[in-house]
Structure formats: structure tokens, C-alpha cells
């Protein structure tokens, strides 16, 4: 089924897609998300809104999506299975579609151990692959998980995440295949710093023919400083930051490290663009949204196509 998703249309046209993300505020002020939105105007084809990322409580993804939708964006609602059971999930899927949201990213979510409420009870009624199946069943079969029919189907472009840098490496392409089989139409990857390993994963993906069944958007995150690079390398599970990135940032004066991080990011995008099977880029500038335009511009991704 075709949806009203701008992202789907851009990919359909064969354009190299650009997405980015907005982290919702830790409060009820809608202007904070509008401000982030302003920085991304005309820069992206669609914008993700994270769902209490790292298990820290923030404004809900769906609410922020609506605010961004009103600004003219095509938001991607992120949904984790950590906090919702199948009843809440299906309810939010219907709600998202009713509010004109066209895209959903299906995730299991960071464990609450990392967040500001480690005492919370988690849900995990279903996993991320089962969430993909849930959206697909509701959309394509018009049925709830119970088998009962729903009145108007939610027309959502279905996305999922992939982390080529997590272990065990040899199953990472297979896990992508499972997500594709479940119904994922686009994939946004973990931030790529180790291009060699990503390329190796991408080879496997292409060998399996998965790149023809799903649109892979390669994830990038600019480093603000060598401190951030070290933190990502040592503290963030499933993140692969090669020493050469750290060395390169170390090699420039502190006040120039951010600039160097942007340069690295742009070079990475240029290399990713050449890789077979990469259909777009997902720029995650964490609390640095003002740099997304510069990165997209630098990588020659602007202007975005008109749809």
C-alpha cells in the first residue's frame, strides 16, 4: 500500500533521501520543539521524533510529531515497545494515523536502566520485529492483533532500525532480513563511524538482495568534541568509534573540534552515498540541530526535491 509519506515518495523517485531527528523537550513547552523544527526547514524529507530516548522522560513523540506536522514537516513517529503493551501500541498507531502522521519507526527501545527512572517496570509485551508485523497487519489486513477488523486502516510507511556495529556481527544482516520479512520498508541505521565495518555489513545486505526490498538510510552523527567521541566509544553500547576518528579530533585545537566533527560527518556522507544499497542518510545531530543544514549543504544534499 502506498501512503501519503513524503519520505516514501522521495525514495520512490529514486532520490537520495535525507532525514534528521528532533529530541522532544523535558517539559511541556511546544516552542522548544518548534525551534528545533525551524532549524530543519527545507533541509530534510522527513523528521524523526524520538520516543523517550535513553529512557529519559520527555514530551511524547506523537505530540511533537503533530507540532512538527503543523509546521509542514512529514514526521516519523518513533515507537518503542519498552513502555507500551499491545493495547497501547495499537491505540497509538491509530492515533498517529488519525493525526496525519505517515511514518513510524519500530523499536524495542533502550532499557530503562539507562534512564532517569531505572526503578520503572518495563513492558516488552512484543519486540521490535513484532511491532513491525503489528503495523503491517493493521494497515494491510485491516485487522487488530486479536483478528478483529478495524474501521479505517492506518496508512503508515513502516521503518525499523539496524545496528551493523552490535554483536554478534554475523547475524546483523540476518536480523535485517527478519525485519524486512516482517514488513519494514525503510531502515535507519545506528551512527556510522567505522565505514569499513559498515561496508562489510552492506555487502552482506546487498548479497542477500535486501537493498532491493528495503530503503536503507545510513545514520550519521557529527562529533562535537573529542570528549564526545570518547564517550560514544566507551560508554554507548553498540557504538563503534575507531581510534582514527578520535586521533583526528585530537589533532585540532579544542575550539576547532566541532568544525572538524562536521567535516568528518560530511566526508562520511559522501562515502556512504557511493555505496551500493544506501538510499539516503539519517543525520542525528544530538542537541546540535542547528548544524544539520550545514552538513546537508556541505554534502551537496540541498535543495531537497519538491514532491
Amino acid at each position, binding site marked *: 500500500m502506498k501512503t501519503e509519506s513524503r519520505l516514501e515518495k522521495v525514495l520512490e523517485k529514486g532520490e537520495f533521501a535525507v532525514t534528521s531527528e528532533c529530541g522532544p523537550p523535558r517539559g511541556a513547552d511546544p516552542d522548544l520543539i518548534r525551534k528545533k523544527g525551524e532549524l530543519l526547514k527545507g533541509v530534510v524529507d522527513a523528521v524523526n521524533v524520538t520516543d523517550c530516548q535513553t529512557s529519559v522522560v520527555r514530551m511524547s513523540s506523537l505530540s511533537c510529531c503533530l507540532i512538527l506536522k503543523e509546521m509542514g514537516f512529514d514526521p516519523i513517529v518513533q515507537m518503542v515497545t519498552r513502555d507500551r503493551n499491545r493495547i497501547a501500541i495499537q491505540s497509538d498507531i491509530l492515533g498517529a494515523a488519525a493525526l496525519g502522521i505517515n511514518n513510524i519507526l519500530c523499536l524495542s527501545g533502550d532499557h530503562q536502566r539507562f534512564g532517569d527512572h531505572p526503578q520503572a517496570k518495563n513492558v516488552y509485551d512484543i519486540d521490535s520485529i*513484532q511491532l513491525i508485523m503489528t503495523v503491517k497487519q493493521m494497515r494491510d489486513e485491516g485487522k487488530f492483533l486479536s483478528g478483529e477488523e478495524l474501521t479505517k486502516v492506518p496508512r503508515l510507511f513502516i521503518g525499523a532500525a539496524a545496528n551493523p556495529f552490535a*554483536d554478534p556481527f554475523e547475524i546483523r544482516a540476518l*536480523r535485517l532480513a527478519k525485519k524486512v520479512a516482517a514488513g519494514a520498508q525503510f531502515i535507519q541505521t545506528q551512527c556510522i563511524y567505522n565505514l569499513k565495518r559498515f561496508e562489510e555489513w552492506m555487502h552482506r545486505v546487498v548479497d542477500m538482495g535486501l537493498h532491493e526490498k528495503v530503503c536503507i538510510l545510513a545514520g550519521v552523527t557529527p562529533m562535537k568534541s573529542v570528549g564526545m567521541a570518547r564517550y560514544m566509544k566507551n560508554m554507548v553500547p553498540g557504538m563503534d568509534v575507531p581510534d582514527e576518528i578520535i586521533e583526528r579530533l585530537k589533532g585540532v585545537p579544542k575550539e576547532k573540534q566541532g568544525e572538524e566533527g562536521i567535516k568528518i560527518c560530511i566526508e562520511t556522507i559522501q562515502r556512504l552515498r557511493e555505496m551500493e544499497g544506501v538510499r539516503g542518510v539519517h543525520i542525528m545531530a544530538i542537541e546540535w540541530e542547528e548544524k544539520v543544514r550545514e552538513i546537508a549543504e556541505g554534502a551537496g544534499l540541498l535543495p531537497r526535491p519538491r514532491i
Partner: protein
Amino acid sequence: MIVAQAKPIEEILEMIDKYDKILLVGCKGCVAVCAAGGEKEVQFLASAIRTARKTQGREIEIREVTLERQCDPEYVEQIRGFAGDYQAILSIACGVGVQFMAEHYREIPALPGLNTSFMGGALEQGVWSERCQGCGNCVLHLTGGICPITRCSKSLLNGPCGGSSNGKCEVDPEVDCGWQLIIERLKALGEFESRFMEIVPIKDWSTSRDGGPRKIVREDMRQ
């Protein structure tokens, strides 16, 4: 077995603060095996309570008993003759034992001396690890004998999340990634190819705690 550990003595002292005559009941089942609530632990706890009370200048009378099992009416009834002589029953069985005490001796408060932790086994002397969550619908034949519900921190059924790193879970570098273990085991069994790619459907949790308190009735065994 059910693995439990002692509550901090301060918490127990606070619980029994208003009593000066208590019945301390241990259990020779699981909690004795995991050295939390057997005969030895009854003696140890009784003496710790007496010492603490002595320093407070308030004596306490404690009768020490250890039953064969506290999850079986037959044994729970063995204290019927004298339970009424005490102001409270301090049970150092698992939560089942404490509740059976409460159900059988309705006029006396039953207090928990342990924190019941999980169903697991001993890895080595002094180390116990969780293995089962009692979901009521075992899938171990599909996952190489390693439980994804218990061993994966997110209870994922379709493979490891993106937080699996060097065989460890994102939640704690001391915790093995359950799915890494499952994958290795399936490979060793020659079952990886056939099992891993199959999408495991959404689980029916109604056989788990989510279906409400559970009960098994075996008509063939009833009298």
C-alpha cells in the same frame, strides 16, 4: 529452586519491634538449599535478633522451628499446637511460605524475613542465577535450551537488540547477552539456520502472571 536472600536485619527488627514473643519459622526446601531460610539461618537470625534486642534493653522470646516445607499444608499444620502462643510468625521461607502461614494462622501476623528473588540455580558456591520466569508456555526447545524471556533483559523473542556488545548485555557489562548465548548454542546444535530466521509470533502472555494469579488443578490427583 526458588532463590531468596535475607532482608536487612534493621528491616526485620523494625517489623517485629512491637512484639516480644515471636515464632521464627524456617523451611528445609529451596531456601535451605540457597542458604537463606534453612535451620542454620533460623539459628543465626534468632541469635542476631536476641543480641540486637539485648542492646536495646528489651528482651524477646523466640521459638525456633524449621519445617520440611512451608508450601505444603501438611507441614504448615505442624506448628498448630503452639503457634497461638506467639504474637507473630516470622517466616524465612519464600513468599509462598509466608502466605501459607498467613492463610493457616489467620489470627497471627505472618512477617517475611526474606526477599524472594527468582527461580534459578547455583553457578558455584555462593552464586545463584535466574533461569526461569514461569511464563507458563516453555519455548526452550526452540532456543537451544536458553530462555530468551529470562536471559534477555528485554525478553526479546526474535534475536538480539542493538545493544549487544562483545557478548554482553547493554544493561550491565557483567550480564551475558542472552541472545548471544542462544545463537552460539543453536550453532553448536546445528539448528541456527532453521531456527533463527523464523519470525517468532507475538507471545500469548495469558499463561504468565499477566493472566492473573495462576492455579493448576490436576483432576487425576484429586481425592
